[in-house]
């Protein structure tokens, strides 16, 4: 179905729009920020946002929406920015994405909406992510007077339990509360947000933003319960049979750290990225001694991996005072899955990159603390299934380097707790929950989405899966009422 083109508020003639340079995001000075945990990117000014929005050429057939996993009405919100209706623009985004301030910060727009932006074919694409972030922040700061008041719908009388308060769970909660269902989010940790709170550092996603999004949902009626481990505190069966939940959504994420299985991984000073980042982010290790979580200040910290988690960990190590913080990655920079922006920021902050290197052993001292890493040099072979050239070890290239902290950031698996306590729910051989496109699992009334189904992916993909599941849960609950009547 063809979309109706939004009303244009762009006063710049089309030809001139292409001469406007992409607006740079103001950011903290690299030297200064490498010593603090304040946000790196400072966000557009209103003037910059309007100029950037005016770069949109209002394509007859815009492709940007197709690049967004939740199909945000990008052309519409950009025109509202041109009109300087920033709160309206944020509301337009929220029709499809309940967490724009978060997605504007952590989504890989360069491989999604901005990658397919028509302007980007010849020039730099419109900075859609930065615009999303700007209007979301603006609305948070100024929008309380102009944001439409949430009208509570008629109660449906049906209860939904959401397990996990990460992006998938929050998206489900946001959609289902609008349907009048009684929605409760159960979180195993003592703060809400899942990977957004334990995984992503303050300098990339300030926790205040997350708390505000959670508070918004609470205002709408979503109930949040923390320190509640589904599968231990209560099983899914107990939630449904004893507590009367009509449906359950599982958005547990992929929080089980993976190690490399090389000698020395159990030495002191060798962390999984999950532990290291959780200590710093969730347990506020970066605010020690005000907070009680100590974190080691390394002379040389190496972080093994090349994804966004590795970048978060290495930049955290640097900020914690490491004299030297290095990425050790087995392929070359070209194959790194981390966002270019994160790589660029890490380099600016003094992070060293040791590419085409892979550790094969960690060496400890008499106290059992890591003091060195034995590594191998790699060379690139033929591309693998991911299309990236595969690293092959170079025989005889071993070398040893001094390190006193190691963080393993090679990926995460799914937590086996639910599959162990709920055998009715089918899992695949990797332990991920098997669900159809709408999140239906093999157990009636139980839905799942996000990383627990797909394996580690992006925030927006988890939200997209959550929204699909919310629609399916809604349908399921309606049918359930119908069958009772």
């Amino acid at each position, binding site marked *: 179905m063809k979309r109706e083109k939004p009303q244009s508020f762009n006063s710049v003639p089309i030809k001139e729009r292409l001469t406007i340079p992409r607006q740079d995001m103001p950011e903290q000075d690299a030297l200064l920020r490498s010593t603090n945990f304040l946000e790196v990117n400072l966000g557009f000014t209103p003037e910059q946002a309007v100029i950037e929005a005016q770069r949109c050429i209002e394509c007859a057939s815009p492709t940007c929406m197709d690049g967004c996993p939740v199909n945000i009405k990008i052309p519409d919100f950009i025109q509202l920015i041109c009109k300087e209706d920033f709160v309206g623009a944020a509301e337009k985004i929220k029709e499809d994405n309940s967490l724009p301030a978060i997605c504007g910060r952590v989504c890989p727009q360069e491989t999604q909406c901005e990658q397919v932006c028509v302007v980007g074919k010849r020039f730099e694409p419109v900075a859609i992510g930065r615009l999303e972030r700007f209007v979301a922040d603006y609305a948070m700061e100024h929008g309380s007077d102009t944001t439409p008041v949430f009208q509570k719908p008629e109660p449906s009388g049906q209860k939904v339990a959401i397990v996990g308060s990460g992006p998938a769970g929050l998206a489900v909660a946001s959609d289902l509360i609008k349907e009048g269902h009684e929605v409760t989010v159960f979180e195993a940790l003592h703060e809400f947000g899942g990977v957004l709170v334990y995984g992503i550092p303050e300098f990339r996603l300030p926790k205040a933003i997350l708390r505000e999004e959670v508070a918004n949902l609470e205002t709408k009626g979503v109930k949040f319960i923390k320190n509640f481990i589904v599968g231990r505190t209560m099983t899914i069966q107990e939630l449904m049979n004893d507590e009367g939940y009509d449906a359950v959504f599982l958005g547990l994420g992929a929080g089980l750290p*993976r190690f*490399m*299985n*090389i*000698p020395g991984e159990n030495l002191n000073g060798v962390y999984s*990225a999950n532990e290291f980042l959780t200590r710093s982010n969730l347990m506020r290790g970066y605010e020690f001694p005000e907070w009680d979580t100590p974190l080691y200040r390394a002379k040389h910290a190496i972080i093994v*991996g*090349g*994804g*966004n*988690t*590795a970048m978060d960990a290495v930049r955290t190590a640097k900020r914690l005072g490491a004299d030297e913080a290095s990425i050790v*990655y*087995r*392929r070359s920079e070209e194959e*790194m*899955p981390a966002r270019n922006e994160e790589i660029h920021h890490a380099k600016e902050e003094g992070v060293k990159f040791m590419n085409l290197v892979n550790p*094969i*052993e960690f060496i400890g001292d008499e106290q059992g603390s890591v003091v060195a890493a034995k590594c*191998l040099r790699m060379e690139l*072979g*033929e591309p*693998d*299934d*991911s299309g990236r050239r*595969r690293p*092959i*070890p170079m025989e005889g290239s071993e070398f040893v380097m001094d390190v006193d902290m190691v963080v393993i*950031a*090679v*990926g*995460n*698996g799914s937590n*086996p707790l639910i*599959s*162990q306590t709920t055998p009715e729910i*089918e*899992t*695949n*051989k*990797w*332990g991920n929950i098997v669900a159809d496109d709408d999140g239906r699992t093999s157990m009636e009334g139980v839905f799942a989405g996000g990383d627990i189904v797909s*394996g*580690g992916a992006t925030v927006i993909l988890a939200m997209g899966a959550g929204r699909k599941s919310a629609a399916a849960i809604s349908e399921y609950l309606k049918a359930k009422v119908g069958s009772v009547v």
Partner: protein
Amino acid sequence: MSLNEQISSMNMDEILEMCIDQEQQAIDLYCLARDQAKDESSRQKFQELVDMETEHKVALRKFEIEKYLELPPADLKVTDYLLEPTLQENMTIQEIVILAAKREGKTARMYQDLADHFSADKKLNTFFQMMADEELRHKHDLETEYEKEFLQEG
């Protein structure tokens, strides 16, 4: 005693029996792991391994490898430097794949040694070379799976 020395004192039936015994040991190992595994996903993985090794045993008994004609893929060496896990109850799927890949690597080396030992006998050389290639192919498949699932580089 090295494999070469062992082989020198064996007749062909004994060599084949040694190879079949090696495959049977692997089958026994994976059956044990399959029966001990607590989750379905690990059971599935072990069953796949049992099926693979059973095929090898059949090939050795028939002393023919009709379908293994492709050239072996490159040895990725992904698991070569990893610790060899001990077979036990509740192994993780990651440990299972490492164990299996390492076993395939060792068996490939055994067949390669046999192929080299019989370099003057075209039939025997080809047979053992193909068995070595087949084991390397399995190692490659397991290591590809390992890379995809456990080295996501997130």
